[in-house]
């Protein structure tokens, strides 16, 4: 591991929470470095807090506001003597002014420069940058506050058209418009959501590629133009424009196309003198044409699938790059072994339009296997609230082949039990069991196309009767009448669980 005596980073504050904070702290610890967690009052005692060497409690009107409070987090780093900040994903991870403030405070930001974050964080500047470096982009309308001008230009591109919040991400303020008469209303809604979530009402539109695949390239850069890619990931299975099943490598992209996309991703990162870990996202049409989507200037949620096939620890690589140690491996030495799949376990109801769910976790059973990683920060007895994102955990498997990875994921999802809050675990399992998924026939509309076959299979009569009996046997009132001798019952009292 790291020779800590010479290593310029000794203590890292992890400006995040939940599974990703635990994940980062694990690598920090493995490198022999010290870790500092941050939390809001509602998270005291949470797993990421317990995993860290030190903790600083943040205040804020809401728990999310606390995690977005850059000044407080930098103060926490100073107060604990941390010399670097790892932002994880979400929260402040792609906030250029935070990255700048961290540097100005004399601390190391484990991520790219503020300039790169700003360049890539804006849909228009990143798109123009990509286009000027020979990375293909889809025809589009530039964002404007002038709705009428926007509508006029958008109509000239043709339909279907994808409308997005200019400042946005994560599917907020995004919609697909298929007919000219729907355009005005869709643009109005997008502008209103854009204003609400990002404080920037500008909207943007581009040609919508029908049934595209989402393919992205993991890159690492040293900030001086040396860039490697760690192959592609496929994240085509999405609901509400958000990924829920990801894999590496892609399901069945022709080898030369995958290579072409990886090269384009690396070319973009190299042109930007990219520093640290980043992901270049593309959409790939059924005809094999691909277009730049955006660059995420941080560690991705789905980074473990890349780790599983390359054997690299991306968080360690991020820390070493931030410490000035350069890239962990040369391009020709980047491994690629087998296949990995990640399933995002979310507190949501797949049968009710993926509505977020809350509840107390009453029982937790986490499967274990050498080919399995379960990334989480869950505890039985803790409540899943609406304070944070509904993603609870990531179940990541590795197999020699894609088929083996699917089979293993199906087994692990079946064994996983998170009881007390509704999750999408069973839905994820049904996705993986769908013949089209197994055949690698993926596109971003996959879940809509297969909605019927993704519904739960009705239980057979005998199956249902057995389940009813098993359920009845779990109720104290029922067991008392079925088994208890009344005298004895009176003597020992009611069942205790």
């Amino acid at each position, binding site marked *: 591991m790291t020779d800590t005596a010479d290593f310029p980073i000794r203590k890292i504050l992890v400006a995040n929470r939940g599974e990703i904070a635990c994940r980062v702290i694990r690598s920090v610890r493995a490198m022999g470095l010290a870790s500092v967690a941050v939390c809001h009052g509602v998270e005291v005692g949470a797993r990421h807090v317990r995993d860290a060497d030190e903790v600083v409690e943040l205040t804020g009107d809401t728990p999310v506001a606390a995690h977005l409070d850059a000044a407080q987090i930098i103060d926490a780093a100073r107060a604990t003597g941390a010399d670097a900040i790892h932002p994880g994903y979400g929260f402040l991870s792609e906030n250029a002014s935070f990255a700048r403030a961290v540097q100005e405070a004399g601390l190391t930001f484990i991520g790219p420069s503020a300039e790169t974050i700003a360049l890539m964080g804006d849909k228009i500047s990143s798109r123009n940058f990509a286009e000027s470096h020979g990375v293909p982009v889809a025809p589009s309308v530039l964002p404007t506050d002038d709705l009428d001008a926007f509508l006029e230009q958008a109509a000239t591109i043709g339909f279907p058209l994808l409308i997005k919040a200019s400042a946005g991400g994560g599917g907020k303020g995004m919609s697909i418009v298929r007919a000219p008469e729907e355009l005005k209303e869709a643009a109005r809604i997008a502008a209103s959501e854009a204003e609400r*979530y990002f404080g920037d009402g500008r909207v943007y539109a581009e040609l919508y590629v029908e049934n595209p695949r989402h393919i992205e390239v993991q890159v690492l850069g040293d900030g001086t133009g040396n860039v490697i890619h760690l192959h592609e990931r496929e994240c085509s299975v999405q609901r509400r424009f958000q990924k829920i099943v990801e894999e590496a490598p892609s399901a069945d992209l022709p080898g030369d196309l995958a290579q072409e996309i990886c090269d384009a991703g690396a070319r973009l990162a190299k042109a930007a003198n990219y520093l640290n870990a980043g992901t270049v996202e593309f959409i790939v049409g059924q005809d094999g044409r691909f277009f730049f989507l955006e660059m995420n200037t941080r560690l991705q949620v789905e980074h473990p699938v890349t780790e599983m096939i390359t054997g690299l620890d991306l968080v360690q690589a991020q820390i070493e790059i931030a410490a000035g140690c350069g890239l962990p491996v040369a391009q020709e030495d980047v491994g690629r072994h087998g296949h990995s799949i990640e399933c995002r376990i979310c507190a949501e109801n797949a049968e009710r339009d993926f509505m977020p769910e809350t509840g107390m976790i009453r029982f937790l059973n986490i499967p274990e296997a050498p080919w399995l990683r379960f990334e989480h920060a869950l505890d039985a007895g803790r409540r899943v609230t609406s304070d944070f994102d509904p993603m609870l955990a990531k179940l990541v498997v590795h197999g020699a082949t894609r088929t083996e990875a699917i089979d293993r994921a199906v087994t692990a999802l079946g064994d996983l039990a998170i009881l007390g809050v509704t999750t999408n675990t069973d839905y994820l399992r049904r996705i993986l069991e769908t013949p089209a998924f197994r055949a690698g026939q993926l596109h971003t509309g996959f879940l809509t196309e297969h909605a019927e076959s993704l519904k739960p299979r009705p239980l057979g009569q005998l199956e249902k009767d057995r389940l009813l009996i098993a359920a009845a046997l779990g*109720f104290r009132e029922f067991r008392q009448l079925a088994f208890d001798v009344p005298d004895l019952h009176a003597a020992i009292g009611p069942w205790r669980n």
Partner: protein
Amino acid sequence: MSFQIILDGEAHEIEIIHRRPHLKLLIDGREHVVEDPGHPGDGLAHAVIAGQRLSLARAQAEGGQVVRCDGRTHMVTLLVEGEEADEGAALSDLRAPMPGTVVSLHAQPGQDVTAGMALITIESMKLQTMLAAPRDGVVAEICVAEGDLFEKDQLLVSLQKEEGDAGDA
């Protein structure tokens, strides 16, 4: 001795026929033997029921019990004698599935609505969702206003009770 069990929203009758040598039960009139009832309590359990060994996980939760068996999770409620499922009320009330805020209202008291018709748009966790009428009927009351915050399970909109039997909706 008979119980009513609600499995994923569907009611079933369960009756104890005899206890020894093995527990014998009637489920909606079908007879089954419990060879091994397994352990009670929350957590992982095994049971042998109607000739098959089942592996399951269970936990007591708000409003009943969660049972996970064969990779599927089910919500189960046991109704002891005297209790009855208030299906009429459930179908007349539109309750908040999540805490959130009211974005917009699409109906007024006294308005005729049909099942599936949008009544209210809410926002939870930065996502806007439309909540629809659970059945055909007339809006009795809108209990929230645009911009209001609400908690999970809070009553948002109620429909007028049906004449006669509410269960036929």
